[in-house]
């Protein structure tokens, strides 16, 4: 269980995963925030109001998968670094794109090869960096997108440069 180990189990992950038909349409966010903590920057970060908190700031964020465009504006705003963007509609067969916040140095460069790690920090595979966004407005939280095997999209959650 997440609360004992810090590792989200596949069972715990289910409610925040977009349905298959939404995944096929292109980029969408996965918000891995499973605890009622007082925090809401993701709500105001979303330009299309796809993130809601029903009963106030300590509620968990609810993402409307259909409204979400996968733009990634929420990713660097999350203080818990808990938001990921998955893009299953990638033009390389068998591959998908995964975007995440990255706050370690060095920040990788586009096309660099990095280690893709799972939720326990274990090596999964080598992955190519497809994009790095790190503007001043992100205040030193880079958003790194890597190309990963499509069938490992829910396992990979970190990188080692």
């Amino acid at each position, binding site marked *: 269980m997440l609360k004992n180990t810090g590792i989200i189990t596949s069972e715990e992950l289910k409610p925040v995963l977009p349905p298959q038909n939404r995944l096929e349409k292109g980029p969408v966010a996965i918000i891995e925030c499973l605890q009622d*903590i007082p925090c809401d920057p993701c709500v105001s970060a979303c330009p299309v109001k796809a993130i809601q908190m029903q009963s106030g700031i300590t509620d968990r964020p609810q993402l409307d998968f259909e409204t979400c465009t996968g733009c990634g504006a929420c990713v660097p705003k999350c203080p818990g670094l808990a938001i990921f963007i998955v893009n299953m509609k990638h033009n390389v067969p068998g591959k998908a794109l995964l975007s995440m916040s990255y706050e370690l140095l060095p920040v990788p460069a586009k096309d660099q090869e990095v280690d893709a*790690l799972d939720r326990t920090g274990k090596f999964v595979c080598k992955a190519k960096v497809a994009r790095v966004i790190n503007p001043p407005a992100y*205040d030193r939280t880079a958003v790194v997108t890597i190309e990963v095997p499509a069938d490992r999209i829910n396992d990979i959650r970190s990188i080692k440069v």
Partner: protein
Amino acid sequence: MSRNTEIFVIGGGPAGLSAAIVASQLGARTLLVDDSARLGGQLIKQTHRFFGSSNRDAGIRGITIAEMLCKEVKDASDRLTVLENTAAVGFYANKEAGILSQDAYERVSYQAAIVCTGATENSLTFENNDLPGIYGAGGVQTLMNVHGIKPGRKILMVGSGNIGLIVSYQLLQAGVEVVGLVEGMPTIGGYLVHASKIRRLGVPIYTSHTILKALGETGVEGAVLCRVDERFQPVPNTELMIECDCICLAVGLTPLIDLFQQAQCRMVHVGELGGLVPLHDSAMRTTNPDVFVAGDASGIEEATTAMLGGRIAGARAFESIHGKSPKAEAIVEEAREELRTLRSGSTGERIRWGRERVLKEVGAC
């Protein structure tokens, strides 16, 4: 030499800065003293983004919040005097206090004092816990984020509250290996997103474990952990040796309360708030009517709530001198509403209990 002020704020952390800013903006002559060289308290080492409401400071790094507060202090400088490297050393009768800077002792005559002394770190009892290389998490953060010094190469973290989790993350950012995080409880104490963040960078989290002893002769060379049962007793034959050169203790904080005791404020022990705290009402006024409290000294919480408590104390202290003010009332109302929201939900439960107990005891006075 002696100084004269309307409001005397002790402590330049998030609570004290907020109290001094509000009091001086409302129009009170205010003196703020802080015993360190740089204003901001713990904020100056908090490089992570804050949680909370985006109406306030959520998503902003603590170090940036410190800069924002310091700018407000500067803007209020016609009414607000700041003395750094200056400690408040005692309360005397007739609304007087003593302050000690590096080269001078002075008396301060005030009308209302707001004491925001913060907290001190707890330690933990285990064999060899006095070896060089064993630090409190606050000390590690100061070394690393204020002075740019790595405390070690391989660190073992003890305590899974938000401080333990966040400092572990900051150590990883500084390029220090975190060999593990130990927690006596079966569940992680801090926010789970912080735990996942360090877990996916490869840090093992040992819940239901404790540290039995530190190894080494002249410095830390390792630690022995073991599993604990539901009554926190070591389970035999579960010992685990971990190699490390540094052990970081993040096992809670205790309010710093000496000045309240000297000011003859009534104290109450509330476990949920970290121990003994001065009794205070919803205006943050203690049982000594000239002394207000805010921040961790009023109960261990975090910086955002400390700032809001400071704003309430600043506004009410102003009113205690100048009488009712609609502007002060509006500040208090706004801060109260934000506090209510921040403390709602399951993670705010313990704080709510603790604060209710303080208010109930005050009512009984």
